């Protein structure tokens, strides 16, 4: 059990660490030139009106790629429900016993519905990716394995839960066991395997393009919607002053890099002989 608990902790830690590293990496990139796409929502309420339907219901896909939405929405919404179920499970482990009458059915319902939706969603995505040429030719072996992994994980979790003998340790007991390192706990093997694979998948996600839940913050807030002006003496001006001192190494003759800074390059006029 010690190994199992270690795996659980390691998986969650890798997920958190890799997600943070990825987010920090993008946030530390230099401020780019403006590259917004309109319409740009204004104010927090304007942003929420776009973000909530996009995040919860994949509105963009509904609007522009309906056949994909039919399989992608259950997949993603299923994952949200699994995440919600997991959080409710965590709350249940900490909450007073009286609350369990509400929390227990809630996390069971969320987890079960989420797993079922994710299972069919991932199989649907896999089927589309295999059957539509326009998707197949851009897919790597990894893309297929990722989808199989999702389907297998939720199938294991469902099978583990549904085949669990009465009175045996369930998700709640395993969570409590992990919190207290209860080595005497003996959960059913199938459920244990499902949780172990699930945590491995969790750790794997931020190492791949599936981390687009992180990227989306940046692509929307820092690219599509970033129409901040550059007031005189403001922070943007200070950042630009730093970047204009960078010394690029582009080799084409008309750039005339030769150790010059961006500021120097921008103020030369190559056809008048100044760049060479």
């Amino acid at each position, binding site marked *: 059990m010690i190994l199992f608990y270690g795996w659980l902790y390691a998986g969650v830690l890798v997920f958190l660490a890799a997600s943070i590293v990825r987010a920090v990496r*993008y946030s530390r*990139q*230099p*401020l*780019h*030139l*403006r*590259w917004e*796409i*309109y*319409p*740009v929502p204004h104010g927090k309420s304007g942003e929420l009106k776009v973000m909530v339907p*996009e995040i919860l219901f994949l509105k*963009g896909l509904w609007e*522009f*790629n309906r056949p*994909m939405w039919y399989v*992608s929405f259950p997949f993603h919404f299923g994952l949200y429900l699994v995440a919600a179920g997991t959080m409710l499970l965590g709350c249940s482990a900490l909450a007073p016993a009286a609350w369990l009458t509400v929390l227990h059915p809630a996390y069971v319902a969320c987890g079960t519905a989420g797993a079922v939706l994710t299972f069919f969603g991932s199989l649907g995505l896999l089927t589309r990716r295999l059957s539509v*040429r*326009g*998707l197949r*030719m*851009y*897919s*790597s*072996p*990894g*893309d297929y394995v990722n989808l199989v992994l999702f389907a297998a994980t939720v199938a294991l979790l469902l099978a583990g839960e549904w085949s669990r003998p009465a009175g045996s340790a369930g998700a709640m007991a395993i969570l409590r066991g992990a919190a207290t390192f209860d080595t005497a706990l003996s959960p059913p093997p199938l459920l244990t395997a499902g949780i172990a694979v699930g945590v491995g998948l969790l750790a794997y996600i931020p190492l*791949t*393009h*599936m*981390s*687009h839940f992180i*990227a989306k913050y940046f*692509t929307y807030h820092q*690219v*599509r919607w970033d129409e901040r*002006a*550059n*007031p*005189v003496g403001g922070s943007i*001006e200070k950042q*630009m002053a730093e970047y*204009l001192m960078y010394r*690029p*190494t*582009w*080799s*084409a*003759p*008309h*750039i005339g890099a030769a150790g010059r800074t*961006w500021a120097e*390059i*921008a*103020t*030369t006029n*190559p*056809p*008048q002989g100044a760049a060479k």
Partner: protein
Amino acid sequence: MKPVALSDMSRLDRDPLIHLENAELMPLPAPLDDPSKDHAWRALTDQARERYECGLDDTCALSFPKPQSPAEERELVGKFLAGLDKLFSRENNWTFLQPLLLTMEHCARCQTCADSCHIFEASGKNELYRPTFRTEIVRRLYFKYVRNGGLLSAWQHGEIDLNWNMVARLAELAYRCNLCRRCAQTCPIGADNGLVAHELRKLFSMEMGIAPKEIHDNGSMLQLKVGSSTGMNPEAVKDNIAFIDEDISEKTGVEVKTPWDVEGADVLLIHNAGEIMAWPENPGAFALILNAAGISWTLSSELVAYDSINYGLWYDDAQFARVALKHAEAARKLKVKRIVLGECGHAHKALAVIADRVLSGELNIPRQSFLPLMRDLVLGGKLDLDPSRNNFPVTLHDPCNLVRLMGVVEPQREILHAICPQFREMTPHGVDNYCCGGGSGFAIMSGHNFPDWRFHVSGRKKLDQVLNAFQDCLDPSTPKYLCAPCSNCKGQFRDMLSYYGLWESHRILYGGLVELIVNAMKAVKPGYIEWEWH
């Protein structure tokens, strides 16, 4: 014919990967609904195929000479890889590094973008023009060569083989995208295939010195050398404007005088100098309107400052910055209160949006589109207008740079609703518009048979929209006006309408927006819009 595959890009033969027939293309509405009656494409000459890298499709944008030896090919591939590396370095590409990384590392390959691309759709959904085709190659190269990915990376991101043929074809493919970013607008994740084409163009120009002659040598370099890509130096432009003033005064009965280099003026107006050469009625209309409304305005005769074009926007950050700085510097020198951009979409985006973060201190002068100013003049009662003079069908083309990429959507509509009784929208329009097919430099690129490609493929969706907008009045007895408030778009329409003979057969004329305003001015002799092809 078997659809092209990613691996075909590195094929060793030099034959084009695809060939398009008219019957394969997206169907057009009447009167162009019979593909068998459509023009046959001019073929690339044998000489062009012999001399240049033309291994992509039916045309050739770059005229890049074939390397003479394997050693030269290896050297070019080495340069390409060095450039690829620089695209992902802070010092070389701080300008677009963050959005580029986000696009490289998160595309889910869902292909949602494909249906939004007018080039892909118009080509009959030819795989080569799918927006992710180019991006997927660059992505695989990025993971393999920039991130030094091994077998695991290839398993996760896909394998790719690199050779000179791949590089040469990729260079051409960077010029099969109008950079309209309609694909990016629909991507649920926010990946941007238009940006990838843009960055590829930068790599080829800034590292390898490869760019279309019309954009670089005869474009940004000529502008920096003599002041304008039209070749006009300051004396020539002043002469031409004086001639336009005289001509417009005579034509309208209203004395027109364009002010030059007025210190402290409220507005520094910058035209696309192509207007002065090709459509003089446009700068003439601006002068007439601004004078009639009592606006304090001026043109500048400083080098570069009388031509708003900034082709660097499409292919080269250094060229872009050089031109943008010259525009701002001219405004600073004249101590004007603001710069107003005339009817040129890419100039709007270049100076008002993209240059925003690099113009600091005294160079950070307010920069605006002409559209809100004109809207205020038209709706504010500054001009005495008679809309019945514009009582003919008018539709509006939205230049991508103004709408989707800058957010200027309503002012032009408010003007047209006020002065054109028969105004009708295209479908879709506004931020959802389609590119004219001439965007990102295509309208001025005319090497080999490239115009055939831009009429048949990149301009096809827009042609479809124009014809649909006028389906109720196609009869040549009704003159129709396609309003395109952008010089580059007008160039594309001039060439494309002429190619299909739509003025002769159906009386579809194109023109700017300010011409419609002057046409409705009561103080002006009727008939400012001349129903003649030009």
